[in-house]
């Protein structure tokens, strides 16, 4: 059974700072949803290879052609903050 501590742990992994109300809501809802998903445990999957994709694709390679990249100014124009051609972020660590 999923607890509020599980929800807090998962929120930390997912980089979400949930409010107390959200923690409560998600604890209840995830418990209900995961409870419904438990039916899968009854399915016999002995020896069944997990399927990651609908297509049985092997590695695809394309021609090694030189193409014009959009350029760093175009990319940086999308950023919330940049400086001297770099993405700018708040302090990292202590």
């Amino acid at each position, binding site marked *: 059974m*999923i607890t509020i501590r*599980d*929800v807090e*742990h*998962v*929120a930390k*992994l*997912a*980089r*979400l*700072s*949930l*409010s107390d109300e*959200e923690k409560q809501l*998600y604890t209840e*809802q*995830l418990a*209900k*949803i*995961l409870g*419904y*998903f438990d*039916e*899968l*445990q009854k*399915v016999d*999957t002995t020896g*069944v*290879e*997990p*399927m*990651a*994709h*609908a*297509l049985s*694709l092997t590695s*695809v390679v*394309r*021609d090694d052609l030189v193409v014009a990249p*959009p350029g760093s100014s*175009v*990319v940086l*124009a*999308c*950023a*919330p*903050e940049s400086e001297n051609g770099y*993405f700018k*972020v*708040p*302090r*990292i*660590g202590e």
Partner: protein
Amino acid sequence: MKELVGKSVQELRALLGGKAVSAREVLAAHRQHIDSVEPELQAFNCLTEDLAARQAARVDKLIADGEVLPPLAGVPIALKDNICVPGYPTTCSSRILESYRPPYQATVAERLQEAGAIFVGKTNLDEFAMGSSTENSGFKPTRNPWNTAMVPGGSSGGSAVAVASGMSVIALGSDTGGSIRQPASFCGVAGMKPTYGRVSRFGLVAFASSLDQIGPLGRCLEDVAITLSVISGHDGKDSTSLSLPVPEYVKELTGDVEGLRIGVISELTGQGMDAEVLESVELAARQLGQLGAGVEEVSLPATRHALAVYYLIATAEASANLARYDGVKYGYRHRQAEDLLSMYRASRQEGFGVEVKRRIMLGTYALSSGYYDAYYKKAQQVRRLIKEEFDRAFARFDLLVCPTSPTVAFEFGARTGDPLQMYLSDIATIPVNLAGLPGISIPCGFGKSGLPIGLQLIGPTLGDAQVLRAAHAFEQATEFHKKRSPVLSAA
């Protein structure tokens, strides 16, 4: 000018080719219609007016120069707002991307431009395509043109409404678990999810990469077939796009279903489905039989597990795909954070809506240490069982049919309090994505309340042409697609 609204691709082509009207006039008629119905329906996040004017001028020049017109010349199209078009926002109806303007173009948008289409605007959706009613849009609800007290379905609700209301002739949506087919069903239009890999996903904002596929919506099968041929084909920018020739799908619309073997999925035509939906679908199956197809019941017991499998796989993939929204490279940033980690957490907390966060939480949980085998791996194993069951069914049948959705369109707020209830709206469409198959929803009746009912036809891998052929044969033999939503029939 009103008479230019509600036309098909071929009708517009004849008018433009015969110089009876110009592309500018077609666009102006649609703009006028948008001005009159959009304030109530709210299908669009933005209108791409300058681009549309340039595209229409280009088509008019082709006409003036006596050039052969490309397949969608002068045809107004709406694009779901998770498909990148440079120069305009691509928001995914999320606060986190509200100010994002992509510096690149989706391959489908490029192909539509080359085909002469006119982009009228970007349509509303459930945030990041996560939802079945468009109520999860971070901006606004979109209303169903048949009855504005009802949801349009989702997540491609805006695209379905644009087509059903006549604000565009065709539209593109994306379908991860039913997001083209279910709103098409709710809005009484045709909507197709092609075989996985048929259409390039380059420039489609990722939700669940092993399930996402772009596809067309239209008021008739011919329009859907023409659009699918334009957007299909290999793309070096999407390694999952199939390197196979693209049929001219419109030539496959022969009206002939003689000898086609059709299986009615028994697990999806019983419990959990509304009686009026089942009745219409049963009549539709009988109609296909009268047209010469052999119709039989088929049992696909593993599809019972599809919903659980889907919500584990899709949320796991989504939690990984949405990790990119970190307030650094693009999108919303919380400005008051003192360090990087708090900036990530606050930006994501404020930028994402409640359903998106719920799914990120679910997916992160399913992938987390200690639960991976029990949930994610198990779901992938059952996914294979579902796929193999479809493979066996397609050894005996050419097509499978069932309802698109268990119900007709529901009221706003009816399911928002219970996520599991909302997820159940996708019970009949989800198995198709898990197996990567082509599926379409077409109108097959109306409920007691007058709302449209959708029939889903499912084909084997790369059986897109036979799905379209059978859907078209049904359309031609029936009148359902001719009934228009009130806002369009009043135009």
